[in-house]
């Protein structure tokens, strides 16, 4: 049963002392519960998007050898609140030349398109607003609503910068939808279902049960999906629609105040959504190592709540880790040119992701699950993943140590300054 119906029934039984099956107002209570759930999701987005914007600025500061915002509140943790309030108090301008209805409606579409994805995100073992049986298709469809919003903003502003930004973002989002859909197709092949909870349930808690480590093609598909998702989220190095140095700010250039904030808000939330999709489709989602979903469902009372909370935490940790990767990529890679962007998608990502689909399909037909070959494959892939992590850690350490010698010679001080030590 859906968690929302569950909560509504609980409410009706305990507060109204009625039988939910025959009570005439059941639908009303359910609607209210859905509204509250949506509001909670909104609060989650707000509370997430805000601080992450601050964290990103701090990380960007450290990567660029500076400090970052640290004035509002202790170490600047309230910077995002100050920014939000500032935007709220700003005048709402509509250019005289703009197409007014399009201009005013665009933020609604962008925000709704972003927010709709939350309906099917599997947060925890039983926590998903609606476990649609076409979940993945729904995700692909609803996120394209953002394109419509961006095009409307770009066209409706009647500004050349905004128009270029809008058209670029449409071309980009539309192109990168193809590789991301192919990569998710690999996931669907392995899971045998389109439902998001079903995909998580088809994986397991341990890394060798995750889809990413199932076989080499899935491993590659994860990175292909992640690249395409970054592009769909308009993030550097694919942030051409809002390339400041080329087209000032792109589609949102004519927006001010709160309307502008909603664009930014949707962008931040989109990072989290794509990280969450990667986490549940490839990295095992909320699965707790060593405990099966059925065992969780069988528990009662506080034990049940505890397991739920643990599964939430696991999911959030995975998604947040990917968000940090996205942030770091942004401050590592330079922006692509338009032609490079299109070539990357159509000449590299699309053929490669098709190849992955084919590979996963063939392996699925040839290698029976749970057999010896399957086990060896999974073990090898987990080993490969560990090797990637280890090698990158060693590389980081080496880069650091080489420069530390130089720094000590020049400054007479130690270069070591860990991220948790705030200036």
């Amino acid at each position, binding site marked *: 049963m859906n968690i929302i119906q569950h909560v509504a029934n609980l409410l009706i039984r305990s507060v109204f002392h009625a039988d939910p099956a025959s009570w005439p107002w059941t639908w009303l209570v359910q609607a209210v519960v859905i509204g509250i759930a949506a509001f909670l999701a909104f609060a989650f987005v707000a509370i997430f998007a805000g601080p992450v914007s601050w964290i990103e600025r701090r990380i960007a500061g450290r990567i660029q050898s500076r400090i970052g915002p640290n004035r509002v509140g202790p170490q600047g943790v309230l910077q995002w609140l100050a920014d939000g309030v500032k935007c709220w108090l700003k005048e709402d301008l509509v250019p005289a030349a703009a197409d007014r209805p399009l201009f005013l409606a665009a933020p609604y579409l962008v925000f709704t398109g972003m927010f709709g994805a939350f*309906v099917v995100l599997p947060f925890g073992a039983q926590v998903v607003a609606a476990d649609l049986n076409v979940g993945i298709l729904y995700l692909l469809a609803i996120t394209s609503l953002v394109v419509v919003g961006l095009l409307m903003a770009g066209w409706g502003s009647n500004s050349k910068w905004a128009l270029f930004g809008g058209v670029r973002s449409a071309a980009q989002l539309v192109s990168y939808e193809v590789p991301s859909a192919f990569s998710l197709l690999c996931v669907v092949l392995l899971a045998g279902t389109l439902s998001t909870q079903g995909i998580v349930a088809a994986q397991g808690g341990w890394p060798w049960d995750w889809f990413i480590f199932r076989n080499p093609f899935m491993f590659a598909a994860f990175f292909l999906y992640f690249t395409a998702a970054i592009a769909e989220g308009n993030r550097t190095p694919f942030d051409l629609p809002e390339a400041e140095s080329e087209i000032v700010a792109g589609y949102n250039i004519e927006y001010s105040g709160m309307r502008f904030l909603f664009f930014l808000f949707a962008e931040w939330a989109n990072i989290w959504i794509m990280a969450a999709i990667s986490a549940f489709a490839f990295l095992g989602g909320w699965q707790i190592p060593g405990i099966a979903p059925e065992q969780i469902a069988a528990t009662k009372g506080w034990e049940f709540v505890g397991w739920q909370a643990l599964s939430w935490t696991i999911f959030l940790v995975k998604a947040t880790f990917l968000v940090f990767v996205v942030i770091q990529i942004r401050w590592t890679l330079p922006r692509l040119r338009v032609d490079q962007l*299109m070539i990357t998608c159509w000449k590299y990502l699309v053929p490669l992701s098709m190849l992955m689909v084919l590979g996963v399909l063939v392996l699925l037909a040839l290698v029976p699950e749970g057999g010896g070959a399957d086990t060896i494959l999974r073990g090898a892939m987990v080993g490969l993943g560990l090797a990637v992590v280890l090698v990158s850690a060693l590389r980081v350490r080496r880069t650091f140590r080489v420069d530390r010698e130089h720094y000590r010679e020049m400054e007479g001080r130690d270069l070591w300054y860990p991220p948790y030590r705030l200036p």
Partner: protein
Amino acid sequence: MGFEFVVVLLFLTTSAVIVGIALWLGRFLRPRLPSAEKASTYECGERPIGSAWFNFNPRFYLFALVFIVFDAEIALTYPAAAVARRWIAEGRAWLVVAEIVLFLAILVAALAYVWGKGELDWNRDLAGPEEMP
């Protein structure tokens, strides 16, 4: 299943309502001092020349066309992919493999065609090679 889609609908409505409320509440907080300068279109401080509603690069259009073909195909492939596991377990692996390979083959042919025609290159001489008189 109907209930689930009601949830989707209500979620979408709620998000639109939240945006609406935030913008409406802001009305009481923000100043409103319209002026002709503020209402003009931003063009880095210059006076805008003409409207922005002009014809833009048709290459965007080509990509959109290619995308539509691809996306429709992918949407059709999803159901086949969703049942692939079950059919393989039931011993009809060849059927589902053949089906998906057929879908992919159509797309590969399309991609090869577009690639070969050079439609994927952004920097392209649209006028073709110049001929010496």
